[in-house]
């Protein structure tokens, strides 16, 4: 058959140029694609990812906070200092919620960028993890800007606020992975996301300890708050910022968030594979 071959395939058709990337490089390439896309319209996102949180900080921390006298509950710090790390965590979770819903459905359904990616050597699981890492990078970078603003308005008690940023990002990443797995199951826009924001995100941001300690909640509601990733992220971020963290609770919160993140990653990889490789 070799003779027939050389007749059919003209000399010069070399082996293709593509190769399979190691997993971490594949994830980086997915992040790079989102970065190139993001660069084109980043100004629009400044409003939601920086300006809006800053307004929250000014309204609740500086404005409303002037009515609140710091005490035992605030670790002896002014309310602004107490609130700032909580807002860091809340902002991360909000970013996670928005970036992990409509953009994910769009990747499957409207813009369909996931389909293009998964026709390349990149696997559906790598697409999922790449998008998740991109969202985490967004939370980290807009959170860093937020930390600067917090420091400028006097909301930081020290460098602990940097550790708070990391805790907030971990909390947001865990929430994002779970949300992405949910979004990957949504076939039609319908009311799935609207209900999700209404019944999961908003109650969580109001009652998981951002604005006041969960000990102020009715006793039966407290366990609900304890289940949320935001409560653990807030406790961790606030403890780090105020320097009031003790080893055992810190490890507990950290472990809880890491386990949630792990479960989320497993679920989101699975759902992406189911949907992209039918």
């Amino acid at each position, binding site marked *: *058959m070799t003779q027939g071959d050389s007749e*059919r395939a003209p000399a010069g058709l070399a082996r293709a140029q593509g190769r399979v990337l190691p997993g971490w490089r594949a994830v980086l390439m997915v992040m790079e694609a989102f970065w190139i896309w993001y660069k084109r319209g980043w100004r629009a996102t400044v409003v939601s990812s920086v300006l809006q949180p800053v307004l929250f900080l000014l309204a609740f921390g500086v404005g409303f906070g002037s009515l609140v006298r710091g005490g035992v509950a605030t670790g002896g710090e002014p309310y602004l200092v107490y609130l700032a790390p909580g807002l860091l965590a809340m902002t991360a979770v909000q970013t996670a919620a928005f970036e992990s819903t409509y953009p994910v459905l769009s990747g499957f359904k409207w813009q369909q960028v996931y389909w293009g990616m998964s026709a390349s050597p990149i696997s559906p699981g790598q697409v999922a993890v790449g998008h998740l890492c991109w969202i985490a990078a967004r939370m980290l970078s807009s959170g860093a800007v937020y930390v600067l603003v917090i420091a400028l308005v006097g909301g930081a008690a020290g460098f602990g606020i940097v550790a708070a940023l990391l805790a907030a990002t971990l909390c947001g990443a865990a929430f994002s992975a779970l949300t992405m797995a949910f979004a990957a199951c949504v076939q039609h826009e319908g009311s799935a996301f609207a209900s999700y924001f209404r019944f999961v995100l908003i109650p969580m941001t109001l009652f998981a300890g951002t604005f006041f300690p969960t000990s102020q909640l009715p006793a039966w509601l407290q366990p609900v708050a304890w289940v949320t990733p935001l409560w653990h992220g807030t406790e961790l971020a606030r403890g780090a910022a105020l320097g009031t963290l003790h080893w055992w609770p810190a490890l507990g919160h950290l472990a809880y968030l890491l386990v949630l993140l792990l479960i989320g990653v497993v679920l989101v990889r699975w759902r992406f594979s189911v949907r992209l490789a039918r």
Partner: protein
Amino acid sequence: MSDALIQARGLAKRFGAVQAVRGIDLDVSPGEVFGFLGPNGAGKSSAMRMIACVSPRSAGSLQVLGMDPDVDGPAIRARIGVVPQQDNLDLELTVRQNLEVYGRYFGLSRSRVRARAGELLEFAQLTDREHDPVDPLSGGMKRRLTIARALVNDPELLLLDEPTTGLDPQARHLLWGRLYRLKQRGVTQLITTHYMDEAEQLCDRLVVMDRGLISAEGSPAALIERYSTREVVELRFAPDAPRPGLAELAAMAERAEELPDRILLYAADGEAALGAALRAGARPRASLVRRSSLEDVFLRLTGRSLVD
């Protein structure tokens, strides 16, 4: 050991209760342009997705570039190019960015994708639009860009799912020209289409697919020779006008087929068959004699026309 680029035996795909592909055998050789011809829902795209290693097979065996998609999916995908039925370009990126971003998924360096994007823009005749966003491009331009993107890794095998569906005739011819150039370079191509003219233009060899099965295989000319006559007479009738009996007409040709708006007479000598039909009293609104096409092959094999 086979030298086929694609080899399938009893390849099948099931979605729940729906059997999309019911067991097909394929051998596609290097350098060949191979077609799947069939109506919508025949199982062409499902077969294509299995070969593209994005859809696991339900049964049978499949080898692409000598590897098993279930085991070496990413390694196969690294060496093939895929043009999906629906363009999934990134509409908000520029034409050039679409190519560069995609090349990076295949492990190409930044400088390599830059150079490669330049070549591909030239090939797709989009060089003057390279910095424009994709969204406002015409359908034909988007399609050419999707094909260019599929070539970013210099694939050994290019899979095209309905490459010209929805394009105007001029855009189709331009695209066929590009595909022909790839064939001359030795790129093996697998094309699904429900256009018989496209299959005749492009394919060295094709299979006719219907309801998940292959009903015939061969070159366009061989298929026409085997399943049809040299010429066809088309007798067109007004919807409620009286028609001559099919059996009566069939006696004047080798075979006759009745469609909603016309009767087809298959004969080696079309003019003679037409004359005989008119003498026998047939009064069609219009008539024509033409050469047999793959459409006739399909009609013969399945009893249905390709495009409704």
